[in-house]
């Protein structure tokens, strides 16, 4: 039936839109054999070149030209912030406008008062997504009060909503344009790619440079983080509108705007609602991180707890964030689902009545003089801290052993090799292997990105970060694939684990640092652990999906040929799910990089540390900015290399 709405698009975490690239045809056998030989030869060459030309891995200078350049940019901005027309008529206005938006949203939410806001959220949940969600919202928002985090939660909500508003205002029109105007789409694609690989951490410093610290900078940074998802998913929704409907409407004489307003937008509304949902989730996780540039809210509690290594305090804030995430998620997915239902006019009318009644109720309740402080208080801090203390005490040898083992056994040797590789050899290797894996175009971009850190004067640090990322991704993939395979084979387990994965994915990356720090102290391994926890859920998802997408007919055929379950897995399912696995690796790498960099806050050193130091020490600003750039380049490098895997669909040979 053509007249039904298409099923919702498949979204990668982070709002990337997944095409149908899940199962590329296997390359022909001859081609595979040949590329294997080439790969082997290349490998030998690389190793030989390394042995011949290896350097002593001299430390990066702390005074590279790029640092001085960025420093001078900063000085110029500082000196001209109140005189240059760029700022007088540009950035400062943007800041002022965003400030106005934030204040308005804040005024609206706090104007309702505690009781009013709780009632409003409950009513919105109930009207948009059903009474169950309404109850969930009620419980969730009351919990903020119980946890003693009411104001912080509201602040976080305010920033999130402001950023989402901006993202929707900017992203939806851009998404429509991208879907409708070819050159806009073509121009936006690489820009969005970069924006999505860019670790959140890397653009905090530039934000403070342009917009100073505070809420406006935080909202803009958040918007930058979230808007690619808005644009992409909106564009997807618009371009998926069935051409037959558009043609029919055109044949009746619709103008362009009528087509947009009466056909395309309404038919894409489910997808657009999903875009909003994704935008909200992304914004929430970013808002928490912007605490580093003085955004108020729950992020402050987390930063604070990190500074005091107080897992318990962070736990409360973490719980509040998860609650907020779940409530917002349920309301928006519920609303999105409802857009797919058709309601007869009569029922629609009753909904207006219900909404009106709810509004009246909210206003009434807002007048009730209840405050969040009237609620009973509860905090997880003490029990959690006790637990952490107990683990520290009793597991010390285990955690320490694990940390030292992996650091000395895997991380250090890898780091040494990477650091002592001359940069040109690295670039050449990237170019060669890149061409082999993903074609020359991707390889060229990757090679340029690989040369970047050397040019920035951050070779050492980049290679150290890369080593940490590589170790983390290997662990992530090992765990992720194992769980994914398990889930794909045991339905019961899969349903059991799904809510856990859901919750894990709504949690901002920042939160994962805490348990890792508590267990492993300040070290690179901490960052690895945090990165693994952060990246495993989406990997599990993608792997499971890849396996489940293997056509049942193929599985049937293999079974009827007498395969054992194990043979089925290794000989049929895994090879056929190759696309899904590689996609998972690609996605995992991007996430791992983001997290490893944040690990700079807790002793993971290298680029992440440079960034942190960059916005905490004036002399290091330039280096921090350069490090941010190097991180972005690393991201592009890794992404291009691995994305090639599942994009190279045509058989080679």
């Amino acid at each position, binding site marked *: 039936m053509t007249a039904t709405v298409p099923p919702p698009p498949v979204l990668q975490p982070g709002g990337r839109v997944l095409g149908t690239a899940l199962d590329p045809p296997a390359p022909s056998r001859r081609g595979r054999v040949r590329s294997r030989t080439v790969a082997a030869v290349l490998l030998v060459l690389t190793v030989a070149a390394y042995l011949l030309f290896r350097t002593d891995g001299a430390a990066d200078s702390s005074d590279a030209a790029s640092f001085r350049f960025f420093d001078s940019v900063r000085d110029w901005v500082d000196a001209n912030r109140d005189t240059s027309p760029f700022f007088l008529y540009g950035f400062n206005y943007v800041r002022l406008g965003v400030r106005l938006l934030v204040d308005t949203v804040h005024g609206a939410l706090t104007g309702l008062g505690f009781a009013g806001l709780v009632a409003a959220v409950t009513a919105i949940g109930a009207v948009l997504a059903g009474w169950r969600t309404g109850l969930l919202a009620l419980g969730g928002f009351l919990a903020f009060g119980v946890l003693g985090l009411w104001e912080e939660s509201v602040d976080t909500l305010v920033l999130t909503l402001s950023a989402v508003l901006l993202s929707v205002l900017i992203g939806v029109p851009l998404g429509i344009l991208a879907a409708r105007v070819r050159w806009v789409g073509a121009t936006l694609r690489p820009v969005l790619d970069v924006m999505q690989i860019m670790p959140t951490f890397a653009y905090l410093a530039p934000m403070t440079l342009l917009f100073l610290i505070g809420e406006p900078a935080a909202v803009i940074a958040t918007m930058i983080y979230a808007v690619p998802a808005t644009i992409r998913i909106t564009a997807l929704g618009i371009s998926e509108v069935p051409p037959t*409907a558009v043609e029919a409407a055109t*044949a*009746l004489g619709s103008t362009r705007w009528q087509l947009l307003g009466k056909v395309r937008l309404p038919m894409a509304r489910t997808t657009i609602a999903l875009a909003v949902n994704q935008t909200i989730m992304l914004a929430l996780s970013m808002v928490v991180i912007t605490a580093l540039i003085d955004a108020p809210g729950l992020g402050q509690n987390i930063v604070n707890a990190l500074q005091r290594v107080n897992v318990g305090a962070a736990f409360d804030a973490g719980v509040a964030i998860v609650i907020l995430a779940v409530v917002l998620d349920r309301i928006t997915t519920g609303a999105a689902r409802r857009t797919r239902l058709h309601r*007869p006019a009569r029922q629609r009318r009753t909904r207006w009545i219900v909404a009106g009644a709810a509004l009246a109720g909210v206003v009434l309740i807002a007048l009730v003089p209840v405050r969040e402080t009237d609620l009973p208080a509860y905090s997880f801090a003490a029990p959690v801290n006790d637990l952490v203390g107990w683990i520290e005490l009793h597991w010390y040898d285990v955690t320490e052993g694990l940390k030292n083992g992996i650091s000395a056994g895997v991380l250090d040797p890898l780091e040494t090799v990477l650091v002592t590789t001359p940069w040109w050899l690295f670039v050449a290797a990237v170019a060669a292997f890149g061409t082999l894996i993903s074609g020359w175009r991707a390889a060229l971009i990757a090679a340029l990105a690989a040369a970047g850190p050397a040019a920035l004067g951050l070779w050492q640090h980049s290679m150290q970060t890369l080593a940490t990322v590589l170790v983390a991704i290997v662990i992530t993939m090992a765990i992720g694939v194992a769980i994914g395979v398990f889930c794909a084979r045991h339905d019961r387990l899969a349903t059991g684990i799904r809510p856990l994965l859901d919750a894990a994915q709504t949690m901002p990356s920042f939160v994962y640092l805490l348990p890792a720090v508590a267990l492993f102290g300040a070290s690179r391994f901490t960052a690895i652990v945090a990165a693994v926890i952060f990246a495993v859920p989406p990997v599990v998802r993608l792997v499971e999906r890849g396996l489940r997408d293997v056509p049942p007919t193929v599985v049937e055929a293999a079974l009827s040929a007498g395969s054992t379950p194990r043979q089925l897995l290794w000989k049929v399912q895994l090879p056929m799910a190759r696309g899904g696995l590689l996609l998972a690796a690609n996605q995992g790498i991007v996430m791992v990089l983001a997290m490893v960099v944040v690990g700079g806050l807790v002793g993971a050193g290298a680029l992440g540390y440079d960034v942190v130091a960059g916005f905490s020490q004036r002399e290091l600003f330039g280096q921090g900015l350069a490090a941010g750039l190097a991180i972005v380049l690393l991201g592009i490098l890794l992404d291009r290399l691995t994305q090639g895997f599942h994009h190279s669909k045509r058989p080679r040979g």
Partner: protein
Amino acid sequence: MTPMIEIAALWKVFGPRADRVVGTPLADLPRAELRARTGCLAAVRDVSFDVRPGEVFVVMGLSGSGKSTLVRCLTRLIEPTSGDISIGGESVRAMNPKRLRELRRRQVAMVFQHFGLLPHRSVLDNVAYGLEIQGRSRAERHRRAAETLALVGLQEHEHQYPDQLSGGMQQRVGLARALATDPEVLLFDEPFSALDPLIRRDMQDEVRRLHAEVGKTLVFITHDLAEALTLGDRIAVLRDGELVQVGTPEDLVGAPADSYVADFVRDVPRSDVLTLRWIMRDPAPGELCEDEPLSHRTVIRDAVHRVLRAERPIAVVDGTERLGVIDADQLLPALISHHRQVPV
């Protein structure tokens, strides 16, 4: 009588630099070769025909022969590469966007193979869509839409949504939507090929009925010969974008222009389509006939009864003029054989 639709030397070429093909020697190449040489695909090649007011004009051809392209060129849903189209005496290709929209809004409506209904609108609002974009008031368009829905027998379903209806019902909605703006011309692009045979027959009856009731000019695309024969006043056959033959159903069956058309009509029971004109013979000198003559328009099948009962041949007349005679000797081969039987 001036034609409702006139098409002259119409070309549609898809592909890079399509405008460089028409009028050059390239245009004479067969489709496949043109494609190999230039990467262009000539979907419609030099097509000309007229459609008279009130006529049901059927365009037929195999899949890929360019039928959909042709019919979309009529209202420039697909921009033609060259040639002339006029509807109601006005050149369509000369129209500016505004005038073109007016044409689509008021004069020509279309019904699509895959319905093209808007899933987010109720049946009533789907039908009212054309009026809505013309800026008619809500009350007026709903009244008119309800009337049209009644015409196609869907008055009970106004408030349902397209995906709650069966395929046949959905296409009735499509039909009602096209009728709602009261256009002079209706274009149908394989409207019933997604429906199962029984429903299809129903819908064909419906179209016939509507045509009788509202008397519009219909251009009807199909690849189903039976459908073409039952509906069409005249039928045009397309092959690889070219017009092979235009004629009445019996022209096609009785005198296929080439083997492509002949293949098409091979399985048609000839006695159902051909009239006596196609099988009569000249009377032998002094031959005596039955008293009642038969009209030359009589379809063979309908004459069987009388001819076989008759003791003498029967005269075939056009009005009072006697054209020939017929007896069982002519009739029987026509009834039995599916083979070509070209009139002498």
